[in-house]
């Protein structure tokens, strides 16, 4: 009895030591752009899109699990492997595309920072430069362990959305109905909101980030089961948060017929309907999500560009040891923050371009992931099981079709 307890305790400790990459990657997927999409989904369609979140969670777990496993077993990042197996040219064009898309993503994160601070009457000319400097310092002056702790705190602060959702007094029976009964509408906006939800939850950069951080954390193959749970719990947590954002918006904005365009709009609209506490919690959530995204997206970009092109990378290295790595990171922070100070920059258009690039790249990245994770010389006995491959391919094909639809819609 005592021994069993001791064992259980030990495995909990083991899990806590390994936890991180999965939870952080999934949480960072709920960035400013994501929160906007969820708020709009809740405000415009009420509880009826909640079931999509359950489907997304399954797909997210499958994709993330493959990357985490590949990182742990091969000890190499995704960009590394794409370069080594598919050559320099393919790696270069994929990385360049992601680089461009991520500039826009970082911009969206800083737009989120600006919007959240404006709810507290702090002008963006103060909030954006200060946040940019703070983020830059956190990343350049700390090592992986410290940075990871900061990210984990950020990931847990997402709870503010759950509280905010509860404060909005949703109709729980409708919540349950919306989650379990799929409703399909062939309305154009509806379909594209569904695609948007998926796109923001399973973004290509997340896979690169997850695999690279699993490598940097030097997780051993024997500890992989912990990492698997890290991925599963992380995905479920982050999608629960997303669901509560939809719930908060549905219980207040949808019921009162308020239409919104951004997450900051949603927070402001919450005030009169659900009280100031809900409004502020929503704003804090947005701020936290934006800051976390503004740290992790540039970091992920720096990781995979350096990996693929053969420059030194890693949070544990100093600026001098890895100049290109930190240079890319700094460039992304600057190019994400500075445009926010000029009202004439067409933010919405830039976001759309980013969505197109991400949509186009999602297909090859996912196909590379499945093909690599099935290579025996690389993964040994840790290749996908046949049934797992079937599920993985189905998820990937669905994702590819949906992102193709999204890209087609934006372009034409």
């Amino acid at each position, binding site marked *: 009895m005592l021994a069993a307890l001791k064992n259980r305790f030990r495995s909990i400790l083991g899990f806590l030591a390994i936890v991180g990459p999965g939870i952080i990657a999934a949480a960072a997927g709920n960035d400013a752009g994501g929160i906007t999409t969820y708020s709009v989904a809740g405000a415009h369609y009420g509880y009826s899109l909640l079931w999509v979140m359950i489907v997304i969670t399954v797909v997210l777990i499958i994709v993330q699990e493959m990357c985490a496993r590949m990182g742990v077993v*091969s000890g190499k990042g995704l960009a590394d492997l794409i370069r080594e197996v598919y050559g*320099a040219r393919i790696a270069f064009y994929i990385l360049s595309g992601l680089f461009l898309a991520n500039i826009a993503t970082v911009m969206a994160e800083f737009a989120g920072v600006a919007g959240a601070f404006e709810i507290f009457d702090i002008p963006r000319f103060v909030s954006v430069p200060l946040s940019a400097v703070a983020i830059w310092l956190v990343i350049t002056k700390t090592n992986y362990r410290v940075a990871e702790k900061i990210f984990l705190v950020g990931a847990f602060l997402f709870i503010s959305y759950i509280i905010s959702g509860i404060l909005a007094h949703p109709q729980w029976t409708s919540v349950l109905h919306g989650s379990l009964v799929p409703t399909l509408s062939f309305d154009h906006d509806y379909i594209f909101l569904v695609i948007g939800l998926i796109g923001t939850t399973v973004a290509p950069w997340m896979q690169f980030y997850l695999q690279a951080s699993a490598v940097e954390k030097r997780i051993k193959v024997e500890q992989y089961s912990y990492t698997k749970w890290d991925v599963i719990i992380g995905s479920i947590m982050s999608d629960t948060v997303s669901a509560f954002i939809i719930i908060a918006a549905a219980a207040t904005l949808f019921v009162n017929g308020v239409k919104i365009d951004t997450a900051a709009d949603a927070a402001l609209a919450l005030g009169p309907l659900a009280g100031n506490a809900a409004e502020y919690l929503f704003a804090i959530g947005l701020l936290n999500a934006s800051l976390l995204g503004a740290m992790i997206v540039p970091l992920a970009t720096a990781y995979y560009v350096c990996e693929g092109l053969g420059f030194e990378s890693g949070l544990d290295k100093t600026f001098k040891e890895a100049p290109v790595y930190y240079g890319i990171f700094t460039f992304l922070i600057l190019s994400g923050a500075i445009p926010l100070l000029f009202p004439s920059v067409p933010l919405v258009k830039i976001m759309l371009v980013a969505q197109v690039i991400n949509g186009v790249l999602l297909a090859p990245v996912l196909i590379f992931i499945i093909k690599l994770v099935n290579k025996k*010389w690389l993964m040994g006995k840790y290749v996908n099981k046949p049934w797992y491959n079937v599920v993985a391919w189905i998820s990937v094909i669905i994702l590819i079709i949906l992102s193709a639809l999204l890209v087609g819609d934006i372009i034409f």
Partner: protein
Amino acid sequence: MSFFSEFFFSTLVGKPVYGLNEAVYGVFRDFIVKPYKDSFIVTKVRIRTKNGERVIVPWSMVRSIETDPVSISLKKNPSEIVPIEYDDTELRLKRDFLDQQIVDTAEHRVVRVNDVKIVAVQGELLVVAADIGFRGLLRRIGLEGVALSLASLFKKGFSNTLLPSKYIDPLPARLRHQITLNVAQDELKSMHPADLADIVSDLDQFERLSILQTLPMDQMARTIEELEPDVRKELLERFKDEVLSKMLERLSPDSATDIVAELPARRMRQVLNAMKLGDAEEIRELLKFKEDTAGSIMNTEFVALSCRTTVARALEELRKKKDQVARAYSIYVVGPADELEGVISIHDLIFAEPNTQLSSLLKEDEPVSVRRKEHVDEVIEKLSKYNLVEIPVVGPKKALVGVITVDDVLPILQENNE
């Protein structure tokens, strides 16, 4: 018709291969190479034929490599070609070099190969360098021309960064493809274990093993000793018990104990059982002392003699044991039950008359020592208080059980400072 005198490998990949009758046979895929002096020599050519078959032909079958347009022509007609195989000791340029990480033994770092430079010498092709620079990367992406014209626009040179073949160690790739290799390149063998440890830490798990396994056992052991504990732990899990125990036998008992102590309990037993009885016994003894005690860091190899031994005999004894006591600064005088009676520095020993007995060299006062269970901090304090480079460790009834030298405590001091 013109022969290339030097070219980059990537410019040839995918280019057409012609038979003697000028008919297209297929496209060029890869060169098979093997180590040759300070570089690698091309032995075979890998071609994908028009029918999609992958065929290997000997280098001697190539008539010429032409520059304009780039193509290869063979000495035989397609119908006469008999494919051959390559053997396990050979490498493939595209698979094992291009885009892979290799070890730069000159700078002790891991680099990624963007391209490979080949030179034609007297009808043979030699791989002379790995291109690890930005220009090589641009060439692979198809942007070299653009970059060059930009560079000339600004009147800037844009040169290649080449790593000469003699500094290339492509070992990592070999293991990954399950090729066994029994000769490590000499550079690696002559490197200091600490430098090797730096290189090993930069590699992935497959590559770490592959490099280490090609080293002589002694050097492998000392490299592993130099690794960071977390890297080492991960690595040792992949070692067979027999290999690990053999390796531990090569290390001094205190280093070996440090490594064994990091193993999970069950593995520890297995490894100790696989070791030579005497060595294992010593390690078991040392393991009994918890970490951070004098007993855990002490060395159990030292020279202890009776006080009636002559100086000449003592020196002879020291010479005999020179391998075990490489870092000795003193010899010890002990009584019949091993009880510590005194310490004589090697310095004093050398300058003493050969015929005098050790007893005459002993100081009046009791020698400074530490007890086995004493904390490391106290060891450090005593070393610095009495200005010692070495301190004896005693067990019950003052029996001499080990010695601690300054180099044993330096890492602890450093850790405390961090």
